C-alpha cells in the first residue's frame, strides 16, 4: 500500500464531502440537534411508581394501600395477567395477595404474598414494597412477621440499575448519527462513478487497494469521530470508555462496508439516498428496541447493528465490561468481515 497516495485520496474525499452542502449541513445539524434532544430529555426517572395488584380478598387494613404516597396501584383480575404485565415491562413490580389471606391471618398462620419485579426494577423498589406489605400485615394482625414474602425477578437481574429515558435514547441517537455517514460515503462514491472521475483515478499508478483503503478510512473516520464527539459530550463514555469507543469504531467500519454495498447498488444520488434510508431504518431497529423494551423480539439479533447497540447500551448504561460483551464483539467482527469484503467485491465490479 502507498500511504502517501491513501493520504492524498482521503484529503480529496474530505474536501469533496465538506463541499457537498447537503451532507456537510445535515451532518453538522444532526450532531447539534441530537445533542439538544439528549439534554432536553429528563435526566432522571419518574418517581411515582405504578404497581400492579392482584387481590381476590382485601383485608381491612390493606384498604390503606391506595393511600401509600408515591405509589399508584393498578388492579388486575388474575395473577397471570399481573405476571404478564410485569414481565413485559409495563410495571416495575406487582403484588399478588393469596385468596386465603384472611383465613391464614385468623388461624395465626403466615399467608404467602407474592411480589413480582421486572428486570429493570430498582433494589429500592423491592425493599420498599416488601416493607410496605409487612407493615400492612402488622396493622392487620398486631404481630410482626405475619406474612411470608417471596419474590421473582423476571428476566436478567438489573435491579438497582434503572436508567433515565434519555440515556436509553442516547444509544439511538449515536447509532442514527454514525449510520447516516454510510449514506454520505455511498453518495461520494456514486458521484465519482457518475462523473467518471473514478476512471481518471484508475489510470494513475494508484492501486485499487489504495482506493478502497482511502474510502474505508474516510467512511470510518467520519462516522467514528462524530460518534465519539457525541458520546463524549453527552456522557456516554463515563463508564467502560474503552469498550464503548472500540464498539463505536467497529460499528463505523460495519457501516462503511454497508456504504460500499449501497454505492454498488445505486446508479445516481437519488437511488443511493433511497437505499441509504432503507439501510438506516433497518440498522436503527435494535436501538429502537432498547429504547422501547418489548417492541422487538429475538429476530433482531440477525441485524448486525444489534451487537453494537447491545454492547454500547450495557457498557455505557450498566457498566458492563469486556467479559460480558466479548461474544457480542466477536459476532460483530464476523459481520464486519462479511459485509466489508462483500461490499468491496461488488463495488470493485462496478468500477470496471
Amino acid at each position: 500500500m502507498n500511504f502517501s497516495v491513501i493520504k492524498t485520496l482521503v484529503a480529496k474525499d474530505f474536501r469533496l464531502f465538506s463541499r457537498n452542502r447537503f451532507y456537510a449541513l445535515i451532518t453538522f445539524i444532526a450532531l447539534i440537534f441530537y445533542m439538544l434532544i439528549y439534554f432536553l430529555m429528563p435526566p432522571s426517572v419518574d418517581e411515582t411508581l405504578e404497581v400492579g395488584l392482584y387481590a381476590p380478598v382485601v383485608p381491612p387494613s390493606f384498604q390503606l394501600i391506595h393511600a401509600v404516597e408515591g405509589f399508584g396501584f393498578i388492579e388486575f383480575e388474575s395473577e397471570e395477567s399481573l405476571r404478564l404485565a410485569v414481565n413485559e415491562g409495563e410495571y416495575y413490580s406487582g403484588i399478588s395477595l393469596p385468596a386465603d389471606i384472611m383465613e391464614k391471618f385468623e388461624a395465626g398462620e403466615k399467608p404467602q404474598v407474592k411480589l413480582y419485579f421486572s428486570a429493570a426494577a430498582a433494589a429500592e423498589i423491592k425493599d420498599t414494597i416488601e416493607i410496605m406489605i409487612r407493615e400492612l400485615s402488622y396493622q392487620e394482625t398486631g404481630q410482626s412477621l405475619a406474612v411470608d414474602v417471596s419474590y421473582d425477578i423476571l428476566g436478567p437481574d438489573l435491579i438497582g440499575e434503572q436508567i433515565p429515558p434519555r440515556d436509553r435514547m442516547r444509544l439511538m441517537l449515536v447509532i442514527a448519527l454514525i449510520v447516516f455517514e454510510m449514506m454520505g460515503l455511498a453518495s461520494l462514491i456514486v458521484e465519482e462513478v457518475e462523473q467518471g472521475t473514478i476512471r481518471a483515478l484508475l489510470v494513475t499508478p494508484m492501486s485499487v487497494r489504495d482506493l478502497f483503503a482511502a474510502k474505508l478510512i474516510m467512511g470510518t473516520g467520519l462516522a467514528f469521530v462524530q460518534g465519539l464527539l457525541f458520546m463524549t459530550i453527552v456522557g456516554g463514555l463515563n463508564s467502560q470508555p474503552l469498550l464503548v469507543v472500540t464498539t463505536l469504531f467497529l460499528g463505523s467500519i460495519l457501516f462503511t462496508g454497508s456504504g460500499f454495498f449501497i454505492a454498488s447498488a445505486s446508479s445516481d444520488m437519488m437511488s443511493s439516498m433511497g437505499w441509504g434510508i432503507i439501510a438506516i431504518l433497518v440498522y436503527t431497529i435494535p436501538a429502537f428496541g432498547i429504547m422501547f423494551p418489548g417492541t422487538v423480539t429475538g429476530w433482531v439479533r440477525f441485524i448486525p447493528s444489534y451487537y453494537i447497540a447491545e454492547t454500547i447500551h450495557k457498557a455505557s448504561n450498566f457498566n458492563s465490561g469486556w467479559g460480558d460483551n466479548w461474544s457480542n464483539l466477536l459476532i460483530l467482527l464476523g459481520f464486519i468481515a462479511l459485509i466489508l469484503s462483500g461490499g468491496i467485491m461488488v463495488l470493485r465490479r462496478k468500477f470496471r
Partner: protein
Amino acid sequence: MAENVIVAEDLTCQFGDLVAVDHINFNVTKGKILGFLGPNGAGKTTTVKMLTGQLKPKSGKALLLGMDVAKNIEKVQSKIGVCFEETNLYQKMSALENLSLFAKLFGVRGFDAYTLLKRVGLEGREKDRVENYSKGMKQRLMVARSLVSSPEILFLDEPTSGLDPTSSEAIRNIILEERQRGATIFLTTHDMLEADKLSDYVAFMNQGKIVALDTPDNLKQKYGKRALKARVSNASGRLQNREIALDTPKTAEAIHSLFEKERVLTIHSEEATLEDIFIKITGRGLAE
C-alpha cells in the same frame, strides 16, 4: 531501429457473444502520433481501455514501453497520461486542486501547476471551481491533467470534440509540442482533418478489426483518386465542371485539350480525404 513504444499483439476483447476487439495487431514507435479512427462502436475505446490497463484482454497482449500491461499495471500507468472523451474532472475542486491531486497520485515532485495551466490558456482562472468553467476550458484542463506527469505515452480520446476553432487549435498545438518533447501519442478522433494534420500514422478500425494502417500519404496514394477539377465556361457561356484523372498516360494530353478547347475559370488538384478512404475500405461513414 526505432523503439516500439505501443504494441498490440493479437489483442482481443469479448463481452458475452460480442467481439468488441478482434485480434488486432499494430505498433507505434517512439515520438510518433497514431491517429486511431473509426465509427462509434468500432472498438476504439475498448482498445484504449486495454492499452491503459482499465480492461483485461480476453487474449493477446498489450505492451507499453516493453512491459505487458496486464502484468505491470501500476508501472505502466506511471508512464502514461490519459485524456478521456467525457469530461471527468472534480467539478467542486479548482483547476489547481485537480492538477495537484493528480500530481500527488503520480508522485511528481516540485509540480508547477501554474505553468501547466498557463500552457493550456487557463491562467487567471486557476482557483475557480471547475463547475464554473466553459466546455472548452474544461477540455483544456483535461488535457493539462493528462500532462501532469510528463508522460512517455499520451492517450487522447477526442481531445477537440465539440470545441471552438481557437480551443481546438490550442489543443492541437499542445499535441505537437508533446510529440516534440518525445512523447508517443495515441490519438482517437472522429475529425479526419485533425487526424490528417497531426498523425504520423492512421489506423482505421471497423467492427473490432483494424482494416488499414499506414501514413496518411500512403493511404491516400493507395486508396485515393488524384484528380484535377476545373470549372469551365463553354461556347454557349454555360458553366460546367471537368475532372481529369492524374497519374494516367493521357493526363498531359487531357490538360492541354482542356485549356485549348474551353475557357477555364478555376482549376485545382483534389486528393482523396481520409473519410473517402474509410468509406472506400469499409463501405460506411465514420459518423455511422
